[in-house]
Each structure stands twice: as C-alpha cells, then as structure tokens.
C-alpha cells in the first residue's frame, strides 16, 4: 500500500497511436509491461489511454474506475478537463477496459474501492490532461512556426499570435507525433475552473432519468439467451444430483446445465428460465459446514477470542499500567454479518466460444476477470474481452468476480451461446460475501481525573483479505481488519491492540468502509463510555485527549492518512459542537451523540440527534457532520457521498443483521433484511465541508461516513435512554436488553 503523499514515484507519459487521425494519450508507470505494449501498438486504438481526440474535435475521456453511484464518471473527467482546457459539456466519457496503465496505485490493481479513485487520480489525471494539451500546443506551434509559449489553449481550441485558431481535432494527428513532455507543470489550485465547480452536474444524470439502458442487467447482444440459476441453499454446498425432467420441458427452455456452483436453465426469456429453474429438483451436498448456525458462530468467535492474537499496535506497557488505574472500563461489542444488497442483483452477459470470451458485467474489479474467466473456460486471459457497464450499486460486493465466472461457465456449457445470467434477489442475498461479524473488546484504565492512561483493544473476526488477497496478510495481521483502530487518535501512553483471525464459516467480504465499520464503531462507542465513566462531556473528553503530536509514532497500514491528524480532528470536533448546538437542551426522550474518525485521509466529526420512544423505537431527527476531506473535486457529489454513507450506515446500525440457520443464510429479501426507507431517513442532514489547507490532497468520501454515523447514533441513544447498546443492530429488542 502506497501513501498518496509519497510523490517520489514519477509517472511518465507516452503517446500512443492515433485513433481516427486523432490523439490518444496514456500514462505508464516505469517498469510496467504496458510500455512495451504501447510501443508495439502501431496504428490501432490503444486501450490504455485517458484521452482520445477525434479529427471531428470530439474529446473522449476514458474512465478507468467503475461508476456505481459515487460519481467517478464525472469527477475523474473533471480532473482531465481542468488541464486539457475543454468544456465539460462537450466531452464524451467511456469506461476503460482492463489494462496495466489503469492500475490504481493505492490498491495495486484496476479496482474501484477503498475510497481511492479520486485520491489516486488527483495528480495522475490532471497530468494526463496537461500532457495532452502541451502536445496539442506543440503541434500548433510547429504548424504556425511560432514558439509554444505564444499559444493559448482554451475551449478545445488553440489560439496563436494574431488570433490564429486551430481546433484540437485539427491539431490532433500532428500532436500524436509530438514528443511526450517530461516536465508537466500543473495549474495552482487557485486557477481551477472545472475542479471544485459547485455548479457542475453529473454527466450521467439525464440518461439515468430517462431510464436508458446502461446497467449490466440491461445488456443485450445479438442471439442472447437468458439464464436463471439455482445455487446451493447451504453455505459451501454443492449439487449432488438433480432431476430436470419438468424444467427442461417448459416453454422457451433451451438447455439445463450444471456448472460449478449450481444448475442453470437457459431460455428465450428470463421469466421462462426462472419458472423452469423453480421446477428443478436438486439434491444438495451440504458441504463442510453442515448444521452451522449463529449459536455455533458466536461460540466459535468467543472461543477464538481467548487467544492472544497478533499485536498490531503497542506503546508503553499496558499490563503494568492497567492495575494502577483509578478506574477501569471494559466492554465487548458484538457486531453482526451484513449483506451488501445493491439494488441491481448480480448479473453478467457472457459469450464464450472456442477461441474467445466476451464478458459484459457490472464489476468493481475488471482487471481480475480475464484471469478467472480464462481459468474457468480454458482460454487465455488475452482472449477474454471485458466491458464494464454502469453498476446498480456496488458497496464492495462487485469486487468479487464470482458471478462473471458463473456466467462464463454457463455460456460455454450451453454450447457457446451468448447468455445473460441474472440472479434473483433471494440468490443475491444468500450468496453475498458478508461484512464479517466479530467481537471487539476494549478495556481502558482511567486516572483520577478520568483521562485514559492505558487502552487494551482485542478483536476477533474473519479476515477478508486472507480469502481474497492472502499475500497482504502478514504475521496474522490483515491490514483491512485493523484499519479504523490502528490509527487510534487519542494520546494514551500505554496501548496494546491485538487481532485474532477466525474463520466463522461465512464468506467474508469487503463491505463499504470495511473494518472502519467494526473497529471505529466499537472504539467511538467505547470512548463515550469512558467519558461517561469520567463524568465528562463526550466532546470535551475527546478534545482533551486527541493526540496533537505530529510525530509518526506508529506506521499504520491500510488507506488512512498515514500521518497524525490530531489538529484536523480537533478542528472538526470543535466545529461540529458549534454547528450542532451541542450544549442546547433537548426534550425528554431525545438525545445527542458524537463520533469522530479519520479514514481514507478524511476526518469526519458527526453529531446525531435522536428521539427514542417508550418502546425503544428510534427516529433520527438530525445529523450534523463536519467533513475535512481536503479539496473537493465535485462538491455537490462530495455532499451526495456524505448523504449516501450516512444512509448506508444508518441501515446497518439500525436494522442490518444477516444470520445463519441450518447452514443457510436466513434473510432472503428486503422483508427480512430491512434497509432505511424514505420515512426513516434522517429528518435533517447538515454537512459542513472544511476548506482545504494549502497543498492538502483529497481524502476519500465514498465510505468513511458509514462508520461514523453508527456510533454517533448509538451514543445519542445512550444520551436519550441511558442504554448502551453493545450488540448491533440497534433494534428495540437490543436497546431494551442493553
């Protein structure tokens, strides 16, 4: 994992072949294989480019991240357009295919996640735009026989001495032959016209409002058939045998095939396939987890939590300090499995023939698909073409490529026909990769004044990375299992933080804000408990102990700021106290709670105001957040991401719980897996963005709010009721029994 602030790695630029007499431009990281590929690409449209300029003057910007609602299909082109000097209303946007050039430097893959899209693109894409502009200018300078410094680029037009003009389209063929600039100066932030434009609209809104085809589920290719599937109701189960005598005789059915994870019916329409699939009689092998249930899962986690675990942060000597404390506070937080449940169920259109495969899919991880489809079909990765559609939500679910493999297998088994495989909601919810459940035990020693002198943190949960990216798991530490706590922001001299990796038998997956939603939730609830034990105001208590030391005392992993941010946290807390009217009185049954966190180099301080009824029903009256995310590229959509993450966290904190019974996921649809609806959304949301400091890079916004709203609500419930919920979600039952 590389920190964005480490700018020692210098990108260099390479022009590649022209498209339609135009210019394509890509950046290549030193040592990557795509340098050679680019050199050998003569005459063809290279896939690894950020900008295409056609001789018709059409500027196309390639977006190499998946658009799942977070707005990358607008924010990333804004970064290019700022330096390219083109009008955002005139550009076209295309989703990029998998290629080395598009690797996200913060994640090491062409992968959309970790709130890194803008962080990674911040400098890279502005340089892409600037390089293209400099080459266009150089082409015009050559044509006119003048110095490049005499030429101005504006609105996709080159303007020379005496008012000479040349369109980008006219200059593009010659620009493609110009030397790629080595030194690419960027505009100062103060000169931005596109980046930070509060009036910029999303480029994809009109098409979404007209209901145009754009999602994976909307895909249509010539000769396409439809597949519905039956997958094991048991976690890890497999088909033992099946009887398709009724299914295969249903109208429209073309074939019934058994693939690795189930049985598929391929038919002329989805409904025909779905009706037939429901008539399959399948005998399932329950697999290695037969009889798994929540009692066993929690017992397993409790037993595993007795282990010492791997130490991931330590300071002073907790064992010596704890007995000397005037008072100790200890709590275990029990956090449940959660489903991603994006509105668009998993689907893929696959066409696998003897020598190639076409995969059209809503994915967050296009780079991995050629490899896994090759593995499943016997083709080579270079024979697999991947096209990314718009995603009807992602939230981490679409980092998984399982459904692309399924569709490829089905297409091949059905005789090499193009097949659109679509899951039902029931299949989607019961075959998710779930936000891990876990146990989070915190113990603090307080001095006579209530200050923390020692903190012991011990978590036990499944490791997601051990399954998906085992190479990043070292010495028992999954960096994505300790995030949100290894950047512990309070000045406490004695610390010992440990993690126990425990496979609970339920597939764990990256879920929006990943372990911030576990660790930071437990921590910020616990700090509130300490404040309460100390008899202090929760904001005062935090302010009094935030670590203001600028020295890096600990190298933390993951996608956090990587440097101490005490000053930013203090400022955010002070501002949220003021904006929320923290000290004003509330009526009986109402309460206010606070939480603060740094994640993805974004600091959020949030206050929730709730009303709790006598029967412990909670309504969220007001959310006030102060967000320090550095410079905002697309301010209105930065706001939208805060609204989004608050909603997503509210769903999880108030209602979200996936449970297992008889080795099956119990929740199958939105009647059993409750999510926030219009009438339950916060009645008021006030989001205040902090002005960026000079030179401050952008932080991520697609995730962190999710993890902050949960403890803010829990602490507000405590303030309203005196009930400290330690078992989520915050249902009336769990509040009552707290």
């Amino acid at each position: 994992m590389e920190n964005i602030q480490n700018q020692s790695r210098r990108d260099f630029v390479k022009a590649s072949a022209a498209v339609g007499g135009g210019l394509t431009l890509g950046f290549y990281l030193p040592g990557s294989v795509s340098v050679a590929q680019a050199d050998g690409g003569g005459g063809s449209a290279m896939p690894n480019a950020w900008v295409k300029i056609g001789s018709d003057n059409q500027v196309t910007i390639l977006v190499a991240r998946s658009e799942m609602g977070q707005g990358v299909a607008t924010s990333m082109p804004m970064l290019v357009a700022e330096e390219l000097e083109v009008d955002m209303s005139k550009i076209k946007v295309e989703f990029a295919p998998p290629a080395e050039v598009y690797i996200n430097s913060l994640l090491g893959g062409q992968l959309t996640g970790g709130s890194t899209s803008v962080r990674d693109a911040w400098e890279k894409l502005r340089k892409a735009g600037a390089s293209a502009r400099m080459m266009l200018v150089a082409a015009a300078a050559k044509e006119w026989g003048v110095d490049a410094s005499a030429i101005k680029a504006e609105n996709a037009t080159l303007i020379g001495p005496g008012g000479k003009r040349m369109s980008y389209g006219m200059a593009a063929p010659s620009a493609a032959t110009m030397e790629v600039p080595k030194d690419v100066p960027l505009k100062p932030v103060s000169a931005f016209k596109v980046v930070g434009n509060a009036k910029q609209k999303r480029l994809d809104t009109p098409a979404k409002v007209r209901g145009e085809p754009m999602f994976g589920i909307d895909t249509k290719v010539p000769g396409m058939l439809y597949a519905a599937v039956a997958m094991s109701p048991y976690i890890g189960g497999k088909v033992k045998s099946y009887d398709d005598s009724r299914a295969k005789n249903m109208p429209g059915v073309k074939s019934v095939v058994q693939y690795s994870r189930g049985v598929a019916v391929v038919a002329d329409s989805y409904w025909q396939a779905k009706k037939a699939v429901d008539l399959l009689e399948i005998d399932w092998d329950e697999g290695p987890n037969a009889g798994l249930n929540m009692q066993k899962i929690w017992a397993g986690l409790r037993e595993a939590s007795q282990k010492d675990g791997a130490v991931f942060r330590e300071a002073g000597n907790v064992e010596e300090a704890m007995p000397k404390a005037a008072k100790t506070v200890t709590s275990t937080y029990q956090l449940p499995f959660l489903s991603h449940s994006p509105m668009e169920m998993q689907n893929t259109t696959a066409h696998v023939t003897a020598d190639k495969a076409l995969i059209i899919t809503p994915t967050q991880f296009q780079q991995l698909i050629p490899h896994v489809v090759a593995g499943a079909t016997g083709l080579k990765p270079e024979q697999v073409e991947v096209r990314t559609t718009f995603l009807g939500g992602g939230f981490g679910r679409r980092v998984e490529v399982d459904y692309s493999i399924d569709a490829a297998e089905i297409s091949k088994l059905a005789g090499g026909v193009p097949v659109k495989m679509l899951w039902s909601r029931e299949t989607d919810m019961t075959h998710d990769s779930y936000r891990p459940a876990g146990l989070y035990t915190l113990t603090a020693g307080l001095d006579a004044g209530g200050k923390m002198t020692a903190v012991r943190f011990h978590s036990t949960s499944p490791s997601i990375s051990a399954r998906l990216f085992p190479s990043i798991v070292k010495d028992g530490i999954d960096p994505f299992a300790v995030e949100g706590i290894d950047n512990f922001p309070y000045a406490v001299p004695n610390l010992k933080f440990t993690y126990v990796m425990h496979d609970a038998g339920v597939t764990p997956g990256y879920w929006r804000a990943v372990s911030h939603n576990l660790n930071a939730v437990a921590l910020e609830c616990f700090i509130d408990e300490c404040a309460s034990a100390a008899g202090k105001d929760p904001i005062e208590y935090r302010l009094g102990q935030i670590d203001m030391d600028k020295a890096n005392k600990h190298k933390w992993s993951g996608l956090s700021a990587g440097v101490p941010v005490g000053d930013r946290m203090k400022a955010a807390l002070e501002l949220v106290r003021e904006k929320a009217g923290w000290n004003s009185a509330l009526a009986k049954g109402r309460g206010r709670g606070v939480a603060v966190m740094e994640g993805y180099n974004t600091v959020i301080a949030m206050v929730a105001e709730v009303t709790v009824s006598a029967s412990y029903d909670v309504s969220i009256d007001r959310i006030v957040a102060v967000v320090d995310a550095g410079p905002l590229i697309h301010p209105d959509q930065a706001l939208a991401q805060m609204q989004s993450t608050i909603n997503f966290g509210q769903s999880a904190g108030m209602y979200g719980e996936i449970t297992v019974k008889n080795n099956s996921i119990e929740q199958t649809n939105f009647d059993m897996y409750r999510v926030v609806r219009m009438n339950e959304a916060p009645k008021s949301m006030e989001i205040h963005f902090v002005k960026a400091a000079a030179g401050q890079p952008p932080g991520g916004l697609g995730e962190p709010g999710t993890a902050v709203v949960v403890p803010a609500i829990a602490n507000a419930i405590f303030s309203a009721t005196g009930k400290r919920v330690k078992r989520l979600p915050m249902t009336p039952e769990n509040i009552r029994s707290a």
Partner: protein
Amino acid sequence: MAISLTVNGKAVAVNSSPDTPLLWVLRDELGMVGTKFGCGKALCGACTVHLNGMAVRSCQTPIGSVAGQKITTVEGLGMNAVQKAWIALDVPQCGYCQPGQMMSATALLAVNKNPTDADIDAAMSGNICRCGTYPRIRAAIHAAAKA
C-alpha cells in the same frame, strides 16, 4: 394468443404467457429496460409503472391481468416536471432505483399537487434506494410540485 395493451400511448400485442409479470414483458419482450428488477416480491418499488395512471409494481402484475389496459413506464414520462426536478437536483447516484422512484413521485403529484413531507413519506416508502438519495428525492418532489 397475443395479449393487447397500450404502453406509453402505443398499442402493442405481446406473446408472453399470461402469468408473465409485466416487468419481464416490458424488459425482455418489448425491450424497454428502464423498468427495473429489484426484489421480485413488490418489496422495493424498482419496477414501479403506472396502470391507468396508478402506481403498481410490475413484478407482481401478470400480463394477462392488464389486457386492454394503459401502461406508462419511465420511457413514456416525456421529461415531465418530476424528471426535470430530478435532473436539476442531480438526484440519482447509481440510478438503478430511480425510474421506480420517479414513477411513484409522478403518481403522487397526479393526485396531490402540493404534498407535505408526510404525504411524501406515505407515497415513497415503498421505494428503496440503497445509495441514500432520499433527501434529494424529497427536495425534488417539492420542487416538481412548485414547477
């Protein structure tokens, strides 16, 4: 035997079996994919269309039950005040649930020219959005009411 109905003002005859949900007739047979599949159980509202002007869940509406009836989908809204407000406020994020949201909002405004927040809650709580566009949906409905 073909089933005749009117979709967005045009007479169409479809061959799907009578038990086929209207959702799949629209998407697979008529190629109008703006109407979305979200749960298959009338729990999420993504598939909302108008049946003679009333909002219904097309995933639970067999095509045989709407023979001769008038259906309106998102493709037939014709850039109405609701859609214009949705664009003005940049309501959609992923956008998947939005056709259903706009169909529910349009049906609400057809019978209630100036809905209160409580009216909006009552009319819109059958439509799930996982991205959390609720505050913008509410604001856009109020804006469309004033348009």
